[in-house]
Structures are given as structure tokens and as C-alpha cells.
């Protein structure tokens, strides 16, 4: 009986079943990591830290991210964020099921008549893992 209770508590306290967890994502080039606090009950995500792997420096961010769509069927979340100062618009797609994060940014900066799309749009793929 105690063993069963022990197993039950082990299962519900595992990160996969948790409503609150830390989502740690490493960019494909391994130069940048981003850390998020996710709360499924409250449907909130806070970007807590950014880690620059080239200098090994950690920046504390503590930025709640605006949720655009919480897709429970696909265990995914779309968030959007705009920064008027840098004239940028950032979209995050968190896919908890596949442990991935996609980051897309558009910069409203047109310098010449022949602007290159690569200077205006940036996209990165991160591989992620869940930590309790």
C-alpha cells in the first residue's frame, strides 16, 4: 500500500504531470539558452533568464509573455511580444510535446530600397527540456 502511494506521488510530481515547471531551451548553434517558468493552471509563461554561452553570462529577465493562444490539444503555446523601442515584433511557439521552441522576429527597419528579407526577419529553433 505504501509502495503504491509512493509510486503515485512519484508520478504526479514528475515534470510531465506538473502544472508548474521550468522550460529550458538551447538554440541550435548552442550560443544562446532561454529559461521560462511555465504555469499551466494559470496559463502563464515568464521569461526568467537568458544565457549567452559565448561569454557564459546570465541575464535575469523576469518578463511575463503575452499569451496569444494556448493550444491544449497540441500541448503548445503561441505568444507574441512587441518592443516599440527596437521596432520589433517577436513570436514564440512553445511546443511542450516535442520539446521545441521556435522564435521569430520581424524588425520594422527598412534602410534602403533594396532591403534584404534576412535583415528584417529572423528565425531560430531551440531544443528544450523540462525541469521541475
Amino acid at each position, binding site marked *: 500500500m505504501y509502495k503504491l502511494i509512493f509510486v503515485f506521488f512519484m508520478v504526479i510530481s514528475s515534470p510531465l504531470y506538473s502544472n508548474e515547471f521550468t522550460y529550458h531551451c538551447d538554440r*541550435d548553434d548552442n550560443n544562446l539558452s532561454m529559461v521560462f517558468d511555465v504555469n499551466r493552471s494559470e496559463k502563464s509563461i515568464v521569461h526568467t533568464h537568458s544565457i549567452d554561452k559565448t561569454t557564459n553570462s546570465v541575464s535575469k529577465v523576469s518578463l511575463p509573455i503575452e499569451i*496569444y*493562444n494556448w*493550444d491544449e490539444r*497540441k500541448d*503548445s503555446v*503561441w505568444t*507574441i511580444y*512587441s518592443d*516599440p523601442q527596437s*521596432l520589433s*515584433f517577436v*513570436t514564440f*511557439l512553445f*511546443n511542450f510535446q*516535442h520539446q*521545441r521552441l*521556435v522564435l*521569430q522576429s*520581424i524588425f*520594422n527597419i*527598412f534602410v534602403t530600397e533594396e*532591403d534584404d*528579407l534576412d535583415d*528584417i*526577419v529572423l*528565425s531560430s*529553433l531551440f*531544443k528544450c527540456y523540462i525541469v521541475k
Partner: protein
Amino acid sequence: MLYSEVRSKMYKLLFVFFMVISSPLYSDKLNYLYQKNEFTYQCDREGLTFSMIFKVETRDKTIVHSQSVFKTIGSVSVTDVNKQLDIYYWDEDNDSVWTTNYFYEKENPFLRTILFNFKKQKLVLQFLKNDVSKDGRLITEESELLNCYTLK
């Protein structure tokens, strides 16, 4: 005597008329009638194989994607869309607008973001689909830069 009374009333009426039409409220209405702040914004893909046409209303801050035009050699097809875009941010300082629309389809829901820059006559179109494969290949993302012009 009668004539001078009529003339005096005429002047008064004229005075009131000019007071009314020069009032801010009325001039605002006149502005609205003559400058509706509506325009058509047409954006073309390089090579002119695809165009998007939007009806923009700067007073109400609305944008409707009215038509899409598909062009191939020898044929042009116009599709009526008439979809109102969700305005995320109307940046008056930079004469730009960010819109987002979420399309929930059975297998591949996707988010479409559009940046309209009316000053630079550009449009950036970006799609993000949620079909990230297990090997992490980014086959889900598309972006385009279109050149635009304004038709008043």
C-alpha cells in the same frame, strides 16, 4: 425700412452660417467628408506572380484583406477574401501596423503576422506553423517581403 430690416437679418444669418461652418466640429465633419482617410494598399511579390489588396481605414484603424491576385503567364485569377485583420499594434509614429491572425486548421494551425509599413511602402508577411518535427527541422516557417503602393 422693410428692405433694411431684411438686409440686417440676412447679415445676421450669414454671420451665423460662417460661425457654424468654421466651428471645429463642423470642420471636422467637412474633413471627414472630403478626406475619408480610406485608401487601398496593394502589395506585389517580386516578379509580380502574387498580389494582395487591402482596404485601410486610418480613422477607425481597420484593415480588410479584400483580394488576392494570382498571376501566371497568360492567366490572372482574382480571389475575394474580405477578411478583417486583427490589429495588434498601430504605430502612428512610424506609420506602420502589425496584424496577427491565427488560423486553426485540423493538422497544421498557423499564425500569420503582417507588418504594414505605409511610409516605406512595404509589407512583410510571416507564417509560423505548429508542425515542428521530432528531428527539429524547420520546415514550418515562411516569410516574404512585398513592395506596395497606395491608391487613394
